[in-house]
């Protein structure tokens, strides 16, 4: 069944249909929140809120040719992250997080990853980016979204997404160059 039909069913309150959407997007939303919050329990809490809010308001999602459900879901996630930082009394700075805590979630998976150093470096490279740049890079290269989907989710034009993407990649490139030169 294609996604539009599933969304139509979900909008009518079909639990099974929304369950399918949940299964499809849970990992992506989790990663998106995790890269911004950098705390496992807070990430789980916010991810749960994203899907709860989406399920409660799924009937308000308008099925149009251009409108993407993924974009709508990521926009909910983004707004909840903004609210989180607005209300959290003391949020954690990624630089202050110890390695074990930061990567606790992927500890088992890390063993499977051949290039652990590269993984750590890539994760760290995201910290030098602005929030918008992080969102664009994660959505584009980790979640493999189209520019149209990213534009909808972040409420930007496709041109703005391309520019942000270009700047972010340039920053990451510089970060790796500096790391290489330090290692030498």
């Amino acid at each position, binding site marked *: 069944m294609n996604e539009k039909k599933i969304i139509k069913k979900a909008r*009518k309150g079909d639990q099974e249909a929304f369950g399918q959407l949940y299964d499809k997007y849970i990992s992506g939303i989790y990663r998106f929140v995790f890269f911004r919050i950098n705390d496992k329990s807070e990430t789980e809490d916010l991810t749960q809120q994203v899907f709860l809010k989406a399920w409660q308001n799924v009937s308000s999602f308008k099925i149009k040719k251009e409108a993407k459900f993924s974009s709508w879901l990521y926009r909910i996630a983004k707004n909840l992250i903004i609210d989180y930082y607005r209300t959290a009394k003391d949020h954690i700075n990624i630089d202050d997080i110890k390695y074990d805590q930061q990567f606790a979630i992927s500890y088992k998976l890390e063993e499977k990853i051949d290039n652990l150093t590269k993984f750590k470096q890539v994760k760290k490279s995201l910290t030098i980016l602005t929030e918008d740049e992080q969102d664009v890079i994660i959505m584009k290269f980790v979640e493999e979204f189209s520019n149209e989907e990213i534009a909808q989710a972040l409420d930007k034009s496709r041109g703005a997404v391309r520019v942000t993407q270009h700047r972010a990649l340039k920053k990451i490139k510089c970060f790796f*160059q500096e790391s290489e030169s330090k290692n030498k």
Partner: protein
Amino acid sequence: MLKEKEIIEGLKILKKIEPEPDFVKNTRHLVLTVKPHIQFAPIWVAGFALAAIILAIVSSKTFFAVKQPAISSSFNENSLAEEFNEMSINLQIEEITYSQNIHNTIASALTEISDYRTNHMNTSVLEAEQKYINNKLEVVNDNEEIDALLNRVIF
């Protein structure tokens, strides 16, 4: 030196980060137990509102129709036709009666006017009566005995 393609490949490694299966399972269960807010499309809302208005108008008409038989009968085509026929016949009868009365009144008035034998309408009789009254008054005014009596009473 790191190329853009290598950076992008490096970024894809981050996809290996996954939520714990227990969390996924529990959250799925928790989310789906909550009831969603089902919103009706605006066109449906407008439709329901219109239907409610029509229902209110029809029911109010029916309510008033109970008190006024003429209105209730207006819903029935046959009774409406009957009512109309009866109404026109009654009107015609009333009109005929009215014009008959008028004709009678006019006719009797004309008869009285044209009839010379009628005393109170005869002009010569009226003139004679007027002359008689005038003469009487003159007679009364010229009476010397009355004057003498009046003088005696007053002085």
